[in-house]
């Protein structure tokens, strides 16, 4: 259940999510937070088992902070994705997988970056990506609208449209949209709760 998307733009990255948590056939929550900040220039969008995802994100956040303290400069987006994927991989290999898929996006000195880490620990770098039960619908919008030269503002509109389309047709997604924009100037969260309930 869930729809999350992440888009790499020329001046930053955009993450967007719906706000629904499903409990079997029921809507478990209508105000779930699915995008988490790792530091001021990086964020993770989560899909799947909320508990697993939260656990991994908290652990990576702590690890990232410790590494930054020790070596004196922050992690790259790729390094954050690798930390996550190492845990996902060891989970899968020990027959106790973390039932989650994570989109890692942010800016580092190599520029804006988007990565996807899945349940098996596979990491791929993407220009845009989506996950969750609504992703087939979101991909329809992304494939049709994505361009290499998108700005964050344009990217945010496409991300919103992608999540909105998914919420129209996917029963696992709904209850509003959260958009998270990261540029060199910092990060900004945009609530759009009223859309297509």
């Amino acid at each position: 259940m869930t729809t999350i998307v992440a888009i790499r733009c020329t001046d930053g990255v955009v993450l967007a999510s719906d706000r629904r948590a499903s409990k079997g056939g029921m809507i478990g929550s209508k105000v779930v937070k699915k995008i988490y900040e790792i530091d001021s220039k990086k964020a993770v969008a989560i899909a799947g088992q909320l508990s697993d995802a939260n656990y991994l994100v908290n652990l990576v956040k702590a690890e990232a902070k410790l590494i930054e303290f020790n070596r004196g400069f922050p992690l790259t987006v790729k390094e954050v994705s690798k930390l996550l994927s190492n845990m996902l991989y060891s989970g899968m290999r020990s027959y106790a997988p973390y039932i989650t898929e994570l989109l890692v996006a942010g800016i580092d000195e190599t520029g804006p970056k988007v990565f996807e880490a899945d349940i098996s620990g596979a990491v791929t770098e993407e220009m845009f990506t989506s996950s969750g039960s609504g992703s087939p619908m979101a991909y329809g919008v992304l494939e049709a609208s994505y361009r290499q030269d998108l700005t964050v503002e344009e990217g945010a509109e496409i991300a919103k449209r992608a999540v909105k389309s998914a919420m129209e047709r996917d029963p696992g997604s709904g209850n509003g949209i959260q958009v998270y924009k990261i540029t060199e100037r910092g990060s900004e969260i945009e609530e759009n709760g009223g859309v297509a309930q």
Partner: protein
Amino acid sequence: MIPKGYEGPYLMYAPDGRLVQVEYAAEAAKYGSPVVAVRANGCAVMVARTKEPDPLLDPMEKIHMVDENIGIAGAGFTGDIQLLVDQARVDAQRHRIIFEDPIDVKTLVSQLGQFMYQFTRYGNIRPLGASLIVIGSDRIGRHIYQLDTRGLILSGKALAIGKNSDSAISVLREGYKPDLDLRGAIDLAVKALSEAEDGESPVEVGIATGYSFRKMPLTEAQRLGCR
């Protein structure tokens, strides 16, 4: 004067608060052949004289590659230096396995420092009789570090370890300028090295520029410009 009972193999505090065995080990590192490192504009260099060549033996290397971006040269017991280089190489590869990227210099140095420090905390083991110069490049710049027996980590503009390192340091102190280029850094380091140790054997140079570390004979290094 070391109180009786504290000069032995046991690693414990003397009544005046000293760890005598650690001090002895640090002393051993001072007899090793010297290594000098200088950080300059966009690069870092280290120089060391290789052992006097024996016609029957292959020349021994003094500067060791740790990874494509980091090199180490040590002064002290060769076996202890080799142990530290091996450990550094393992640390570097472990970092690559976790992050798919080369290790940064500070992380490597602090892990090595922790490794050396452990030997000062237990009795019945011998603290390592070696000091190291570690230089390398990473995405925040070019760095030089010095590590000693105690696990103490120093970094700066110019460093020297080993025999007569004090006289090398006074040459560095006099000759260091903030606008040194690669050629100037090599010349200053070689001058400081010659002050500490004279000899005819070839000088090895380790150079960190861009994202890489290379080692080469002095003659080759002197032909390079600073990039």
